[in-house]
């Protein structure tokens, strides 16, 4: 038994870890007991934890073939590996979340989204097929259009064990991003700016929720892949060296995440960003994965860990819903140092998280106070027809998850297909999936 947790370090549990290096290992594990597959442990909560059997997939990390931007790889390979191997050849993932340390299987299971969702959709839009091992050990190759494909992409590993997949990458001329930063001072200004910049390939906003929607200082970052012409003459287009990661030696004192201290911190961040507003060339790593530079930034919140809250709100309810969420957070004077606001475009799939509209991601130190606040945020989200991101969830009650009618349909499908007694996680049990 090993004491493990998700990336948020909450909750922690003693789980039996079994390593898979081959398909036969996976088959043997499924035959032994109920399990959940675990990639690199980057889901924040308990989505990849099962006390009885947690199947570690990072040993299945082979890249099987690559040609013309089409990669076949095993589920345990990390996005970081793919980038370090293929970016020097001019290829970059079509869709990437905010960390490169997610495994391919994890990206598929959570159907992750990136800063380009409004144009390119979620991870599923670059997946050609995925091999899934079912409860009896048979492997099915699911392709877009199959029910199994639609439930697996966003299904949190509960349709079977994802073994390998074929994905398409994007041809890029350089490893740089041409970035434009805009400094804004309220939620309304931010939403207007998002609407006006629909065509920007990448967009994301860092928003200060501690001050309420009318003073929600925001840095809107727009980006596109830089071409050779964009580069100063002496720059090389690809220079993919591993940067040294800085460790976080200890957690910051909890008072920093409250009241005036928090407002001071976020204020400094905004002013610093606003001063540098305008155009810049940024390398892929700093643009897409700023937090990965700290090898264990999840320690920042101290030993109790932290909780993430990420909801999506439908287009028509976004402005009102976001304003209410921000008001509530500001009034609580707790948590979210930096919140991330993104625009979502259209989305398909049976159980994927995104919906056309906006998504707000927040983090809070794990505490009673935060849990109470998050319950209020749940209510506001549901009242506006929103939904929640399971890859970041560690604490939602079943009733909240089941308010999404798709959750009931998923649970019913799982039961009918005989998946519920083979593929379970602490999260699936908590949410009754």
């Amino acid at each position, binding site marked *: 038994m*090993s004491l493990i947790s998700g990336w948020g370090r909450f909750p922690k549990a003693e789980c039996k870890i079994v390593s898979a290096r081959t398909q036969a290992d996976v088959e043997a594990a499924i035959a032994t007991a109920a399990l959940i597959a675990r990639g690199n442990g980057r889901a924040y909560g308990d989505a990849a934890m099962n006390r009885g059997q947690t199947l570690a997939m990072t040993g299945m990390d082979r890249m*099987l073939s690559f040609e013309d931007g089409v990669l076949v790889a095993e589920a345990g390979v990390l996005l970081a590996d793919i980038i370090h191997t293929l970016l020097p050849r001019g290829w970059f993932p079509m869709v990437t979340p905010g960390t490169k340390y997610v495994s391919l299987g994890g990206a598929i299971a959570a159907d992750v989204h990136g800063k380009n969702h409004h144009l390119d959709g979620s991870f599923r839009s670059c997946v050609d097929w995925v091999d899934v091992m079912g409860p009896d050990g048979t492997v099915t190759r699911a392709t877009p259009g199959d029910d199994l494909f639609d439930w697996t992409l966003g299904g949190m590993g509960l349709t079977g064990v994802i073994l390998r997949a074929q994905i398409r990458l994007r041809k890029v001329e350089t490893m740089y991003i041409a970035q434009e930063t805009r400094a804004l001072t309220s939620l309304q200004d931010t939403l207007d700016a998002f609407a006006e910049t629909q065509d920007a390939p990448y967009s994301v906003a860092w928003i200060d929720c501690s001050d309420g929607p009318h003073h929600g200082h925001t840095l809107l970052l727009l980006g596109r892949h830089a071409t050779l012409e964009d580069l100063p003459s002496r720059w090389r287009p690809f220079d993919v060296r591993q940067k040294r990661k800085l460790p976080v030696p200890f957690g910051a004192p909890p008072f920093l995440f409250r009241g005036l201290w928090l407002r001071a911190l976020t204020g400094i961040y905004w002013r610093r960003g606003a001063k540098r507003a305008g155009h810049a060339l940024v390398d892929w790593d700093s643009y897409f994965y700023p937090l990965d530079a700290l090898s264990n930034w999840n320690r920042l919140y101290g030993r109790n860990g932290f909780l993430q809250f990420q909801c999506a709100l439908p287009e028509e309810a976004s402005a009102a819903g976001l304003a209410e969420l921000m008001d509530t957070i500001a009034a609580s004077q707790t948590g979210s140092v930096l919140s991330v606001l993104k625009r979502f475009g259209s989305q398909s799939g049976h159980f994927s998280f995104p919906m056309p509209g906006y998504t707000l991601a927040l983090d809070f130190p794990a505490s009673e106070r935060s849990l109470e606040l998050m319950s209020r945020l749940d209510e506001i989200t549901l009242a506006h027809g929103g939904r929640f991101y399971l890859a970041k969830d560690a604490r939602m009650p079943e009733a909240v998850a089941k308010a999404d009618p798709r959750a009931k349909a998923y649970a019913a499908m799982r039961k009918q297909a005989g998946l519920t007694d083979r593929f379970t996680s602490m999260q699936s049990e908590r949410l009754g999936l």
Partner: protein
Amino acid sequence: MSGPVLILGAASGIARAVARSFAEAGHPIQLAARNSARLEEDAADLRTRYGVEVTLHDFDALTLDSHAAFVEGLPVLPEVAVCAVGAMGEQAQSEADPQAAAHVMRSNFEGPASVLAHLANAMEARGSGSIVGISSVAGDRGRASNYVYGSAKAGFTAFLSGLRNRLAKKGVHVVTVLPGFVRTAMLDGMDTPGPLTAEPAEVGAAVLKAVEKQKNVIYTRPIWGVVMAVIRNIPEPVFKKTSL
């Protein structure tokens, strides 16, 4: 240098990491293991990632009389031969059943020493090459919890030391690698202290560096050198009362 690298016992987690490190440095790779067909995916991985040539070879460490033919049958005598063959076994089983103990000893000492002897002779005749033996810190001192495995590794460590001594003037270099805990399937179910536990990739990088710099004996995490120095120097009357 960019000659071929032979990996014996190529199915293990450490072996895969070692193969990747050498392939990344541009070496063609020869993967050898029992039923080598199951290494197709590893070969595909090395080709896809690093664009190097990879060949597969059937090899059974326990069948000593096949080793001469195995070495002769390689398409080309490798520049570097890495032996990652080994089996931890279970101490309790080894205690109860001397046959099981013999299997552990043969897998960790007799088999590896036999195949490396053939390779050493061929490299000596050629006048160049490097031999890497993956041994274990468990061989530094016998402990109640795994002395059967430890004793075999101790034998292997001594064998490598002697081989190095013999071949030093013949242009063939021998590296002894002593990994401590490495996060592979072997450690499933064991909680090991973080600072003492290496990732397989770390071991791969350490082996490549040791070959390039002609190191003699390396602990893949230097802290193990200190830990084992302490353990080796505990006086026997005290040591026999401990449970390490």
